[in-house]
C-alpha cells in the first residue's frame, strides 16, 4: 500500500529552564498509508500532539526524518512546507479554532481561497456544509453555533479544498462522548468520500475502534500498534 507519511527515528527534545533536557519523542517510526484513518492514542503529555505537529510540518524534529507524500520535510524550504500545508493538508484543531470574525460560510470560503481553489467556491461551500448538515446555519457566526456544530464547520473547512491528508488534533476534546463519536464518524465518512488520509490524536478510548490503525504513545515512544480490519 502506498505510504502517505513515514517517520524514521524521530526524536524531539526541549531544553528546560534549568538547562536539563526533556525528551518528548524518542525514536518514533511509524508509517501511515494513504486513505487510512490513523489514530494516535495517548495520555495528555505523551507526545502525540508533538508527533502530529511534526508530521504536518508545524514543528521540526531534533533528529530523524518525516517523509510526507514521498517528500522529505528536511529537504523542503519553509515556503515549500507552507505550500504543502496550504494545498495538501487540512486541519482540525482541538480548540475548534474557527476564525471568530467569520461566519461558518466565510470560514470555509477562507480555506478555499487560501488553497487557491479554482472551482465554484459557493457550490463547494454549500456542498461541504450540506455534508456536515449545517447548510441551514452556514451564515451564523462561529460563536452562535454549539461546540459540536463548530467542530463540524471545522471539518467542512478542513476537507473543502480536497486535501490529501487531514490532521486532527483531539477533534473531540471539547465535546461530550456522544457528540464526539458523531463528529468522528462524520469525519471518517466525509474523508472516505473525498479520498483523504486522516491522522488524528485522541485520548478517548471510545474512538479507537473507528481507526484503521491505532498507535499508542506513552512517554514519547510507540508502545502499541493495532490494525483494525
Amino acid at each position, binding site marked *: 500500500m502506498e505510504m502517505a507519511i513515514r517517520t524514521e527515528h524521530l526524536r524531539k527534545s526541549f531544553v528546560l529552564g534549568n538547562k536539563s533536557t526533556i525528551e518528548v519523542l524518542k525514536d518514533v517510526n511509524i508509517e501511515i498509508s494513504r486513505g487510512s484513518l490513523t489514530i494516535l492514542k495517548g495520555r495528555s503529555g505523551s507526545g502525540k500532539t508533538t508527533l502530529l505537529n511534526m508530521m504536518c510540518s508545524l514543528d521540526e524534529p531534533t533528529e530523524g526524518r518525516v517523509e510526507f507524500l514521498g517528500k522529505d520535510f528536511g529537504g523542503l524550504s519553509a515556503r515549500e512546507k*507552507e505550500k504543502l500545508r496550504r494545498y495538501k493538508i487540512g*486541519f482540525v*484543531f482541538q480548540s475548534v479554532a474557527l476564525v471568530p*470574525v467569520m461566519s461558518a460560510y466565510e470560514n470555509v*470560503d*477562507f480555506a478555499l481561497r*487560501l488553497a487557491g481553489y479554482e472551482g465554484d467556491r459557493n457550490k463547494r461551500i454549500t456542498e461541504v456544509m450540506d455534508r456536515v448538515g449545517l447548510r441551514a446555519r452556514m451564515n451564523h457566526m462561529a460563536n452562535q453555533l454549539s461546540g459540536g456544530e463548530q467542530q463540524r464547520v471545522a471539518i467542512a473547512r478542513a476537507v473543502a479544498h480536497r486535501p490529501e491528508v487531514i490532521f486532527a488534533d483531539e477533534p473531540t476534546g471539547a465535546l461530550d462522548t456522544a457528540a464526539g463519536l458523531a463528529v468522528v464518524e462524520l469525519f471518517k465518512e466525509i474523508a472516505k468520500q473525498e479520498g483523504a488520509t486522516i491522522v488524528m490524536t485522541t485520548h478517548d478510548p471510545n474512538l479507537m475502534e473507528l481507526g484503521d490503525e491505532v498507535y499508542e504513545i506513552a512517554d514519547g515512544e510507540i508502545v502499541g500498534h493495532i490494525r483494525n480490519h
Partner: protein
Amino acid sequence: MFQFIRRKIKNKRWLNLCLLVGIVLLVAVFACHPMFERGAANQLLQTAFENYALEREEFPAVIAREESYQVEEYKNMQEIYNRMDAYENKWQEYIEAEEVSSNQSVMFSGFTAISAFQSNKRFFTVGCIRDMQEHIELVDGSMPTEAQTEDGAFYCLISEAVMDEYGLVTGEELSMTYSLYKDEELRFVIAGVIRQSSYSDNYWSEPLAEYKKTVFVPEETLDILFEHSPKASVACNQQLFLNYTQIDCSQAAVYRDYLEQFIKADGALTINFLETLKSFQQQQKSARVVLFVLELPCIVLLLLFIYMVSSQILALEEGEIAVLRSRGVTRKQVMNLYLLQSVLLSAAGIFLGVLLGYVMCRCAAGTDGFLKFSAKDVSLYQFTWKMFLYGGIACVIAILFMTLPVFGRAKLTIVEQKGLNRYSNKKPFWQKGFLDVLLLGVSVYLFYNYNKQSDQIALRIIEGASIDPMIFLNASLFLFSCGLVVLRLTGYLIAAVDRIGKKRWKPAAYASFLQIRRTFHRQGFLSVFLIMTISSGLFDANMARTMNENNEQRVLYDIGTDIRMTDDRWWLQIVKSQGQYYWSYDEPDYEPYMELEKEGICEKVTKVIEDHKVDISVKNTTLRDCELLGIHTKEFGETASLLEGLNDEHWFNALNQLAQNADAVIISRNLSEELGVSVGDSIGYTRYSPIKSDEIALDKVTGKICAVVDAFPGYNRYQYVQDEEGNYTVQENRLVVANYATVVSRCGLTQYTLWMKLNKGASDEQVTEYLKEQNIGINDFKSAADMVSESRSSAMIQITNGMFTMSFLISLLVCSAGFLIYWIMSMKNRELLFGIYRAMGMPIRDIYGMLLNEQFFGSMLPILAGGGVGALGTILFVKLLALVYLPKKHNIAIRIFIYEGDIWKLFAVVFAVVALCLFVIWKLLSKMRIAEALKLGED
C-alpha cells in the same frame, strides 16, 4: 482578596500601568486646576493694579480720607491725630495687606502773610505733614529744633516751589494774620528751604511742589496754634498706601465688600482700588470660564482613555469573571473586587497626580507661547491643599469610569458569556439613532448663531461680561460630533471597498476586511479616540498660534516700530504780551540720538510729530480730534514697520508720493469716505496751541491728498469709548500724515516723539542705558519687545497657552499609549488565530499585509480623518474663539495661523507610534512559533 487583586494587577501589569498613567494624568489635570486658577487670578489682579499705576501714574492701592475738624470739639491736636490713627488702624484691621507708606497732613488754612521785604499780601496755609523730616532734604537753612525763636516767632520751612513763586529766602520773617483773629499777628521765620528727598517715594503722592501756599511747621507749633485758635478748623488729609502684592485673589470679594461698606459709612473716604477689584472680579469670571472650558476636552480625553484601558482589561478578564460568577460569586462581590482594585490604583495615583499637577501647573504658567517654555517668574503659582481635594474628585470619577464597564459584564455566567456575539454588525446606539449627525447639526447651528452675533459678543467681552462657555464647548462638540460622522463615513467606505473587491480578494485581504468590518464598532472607541486626539491636538495648536500671532501682530502694529519715546528736556516757554500769550518750545539737543545710530544700537531714529487733537476740514465740514503725524518720509520709512497686505499698495508708495510734494498729505480711508475726498483733492488741517488751557487754533494748513491708506504704522482705526453708563462704543480714528517740515513751518515747532528701530541684537536696555549716561530723561517710553512680552503675560493668554500646551502634550501621550495598548492587545488576543492562519499555510508576509491593511483602515484612516476634522474645526471656529481674546476691532483683522511645525510634530509622534506598533507586531509575529501558538489557543 488583596492577594487576588495583587495577582490580577501583576498579570496585566502593562495595562494596569497604563491605567495608572491615565489616573495620574487625570488627577494631575484636576489638581492643577485650583493652583492654576489661583495663580492666574493673582496674576490678573497684580496686572490690574500695575495697569492702574501705569495708566494713572499713581500708586494703585490707596485709601485716602479728607476731613475738617473743628478745633473747639477737641482737647488738643493729639486727639485729632489719634482719631486719624484710629481710622488707619480700622482699615488695616479689615484689609490685611501691609502698609507700604502713609502720610497725614494737618493744615490750618486762612492765614494772610506779609513778608518783611514785600508788601504784597499772600494767603497761606500753615501745617505739617507728619514724619515729613524723613522724606525731605534741606536745600538751604536748617531744620528747626524748636517751635519758636526766643522772641516768640515760629520757625517754619518752605518748599523750593514756594521760594520761587514768592521770592522768599531763608531767615525772612512773615507776619501773618489769621482770618478768624484779624487783630492778632503771628510771626514766622523761614528756617530752611526743603525739597522731597526722592521722587519715587509714595509718601509724596502729592508732590511737595504742589504745596504752593503752605509753610510747614513742627508738630509742636500746631499744638500752640490749636490752643490759640479755638474757632478754627483743621483740614486733615490722610493716605494709606497698601502693599497690593499681598492682596490675594481669594480676598478680592471680601475686601470689595468691606471697602464698599467703608465708603457707605464714611463720605470723606476715597479708595482708588475699588474699581480695580470690581473689574478684576469680572475678569476673574471670564478667566475661570476659559480655564474650565480649556481643561474640559483634556479631561474628557483622559476619561475616554481610562474607560478604554479598563474595558481592554475587562475584555481579557471577562472569562475569569464569568467563571467566578458560575462558581457562585455574586455580582456585588465581583463589583466590589473591581471597585477595590480601582480604589487601590487611584490611591496610588493621587499622590503622583498631585505632584505631577504641581509640576504641570508650574510648566504651564511658565509658557511664553504655545509649546514654548520659558524660565519666567511663576511664584504666583503656589501649591494649595485644594489640589488634593480636586485630585480626590478626579479619583472618584476615575473609579466610576473603571468600575462602570464591570457592571454589565459581572452579570454574565460562563454560558452567557460564551454565547455573546461580539462580531455581529450591530451598530452602536449613536449610529442607529443618528446621534452623531444630530450633534453635528446642533454644533453647526450654534456656530452659525455665534458667528452672526460675533460683533455683539465682542462688545460684551469688552464691556467686561464673562465669556459664554458654550462658544468654546461648541468647538469641542463640533470636533467630537464631526469625528463620529467621519467614523460613520469611514465605516461606509470600508464596507464599499470590501463589497467591490470581496469576490476577488486574496485570502489575506479577505480575512483582514472581515476583521476590520466585524470589529469596526468595537474598535470604534479607539477610532473616536484617535480622531478626537488628533483633531483637538491640531485645533489647540492652531488656536494657540492664531491667538498669539494676532495678538503680537496687533501689538507690533500699534507701536509701529521698536521704540517710541519723548525726551523730557523739552521746555515750553510762554510769554504774555499785550494780553496775548506767546509760546515757543526749546528743542533739546538731538545729537545723542544720532549717536545712538553711530553706536550701532539703533538702525534708525526719526522725529515724528504726533497730535491727536487736530481738526480736519473740507469746505464746511470739519471733523475734530483727528490724528496728525508729521514725518520725515525717508527716515520714517526706514524706521517704522507695517505688516504687508494691509493696504492695496505697499505703504512706501504713499511715502514716496508724500515726499514729492511738501504740501501733500496721506489720509486714512475712513477720512476719505467721510469727507468724500480722494487723491488729488485738498483738505485743511488745524492744530491747536500747546497751552493746555487755550483753545486757540493755529494756522490752518491746506494739503493735497497724495494717497489714501487703510493702515499706517501706529495708526489704529478703531477706538473704544466708554459712556457714562459704562457702555462701550466703537469710534473711528482718522489720520492725516504730512511732511514734518511743513507741519513745523506752518504750526511752529512742537514736541515730537522719537521713533527708533533697533539694530539686530540690540535691546531696549541699551537705549535707556545710553540715554541715562547722557543724562537724558525719558517720557512715555514704549517698547515693542516689552509690549509683546506684557501681552503674552496677560492672565488670559497665559491660561490659554498653558492649557493648550498641556492638552496638546497630554493628547500626544494618551494617544500614543492608547494606540499601542489597543494594537498590542489586539495582537496578543489573536495569537491563536495567527497560529491557525500560519498552520493552514498562510505565508507570514500575507499576515503582515493583513495587519497593514488593518492598520490603514483601523488607524491611518482615523488619523487622517482626525487631521481633516482638526483642519475643518480650525477654519470654522478659530476666528470666532480668537475674538474672545482679541475682541477689539483692529486694522489687522483676525487671521488664522497654522504652523507647519506643529502639524509635523503631531504627525511625527503619531507616525512614530504607528511605526513602533508595527515593529512590536513584527517582533511578536516573527517570534511566533505556530505549534506554540496553537498550544496557547488550546490552553
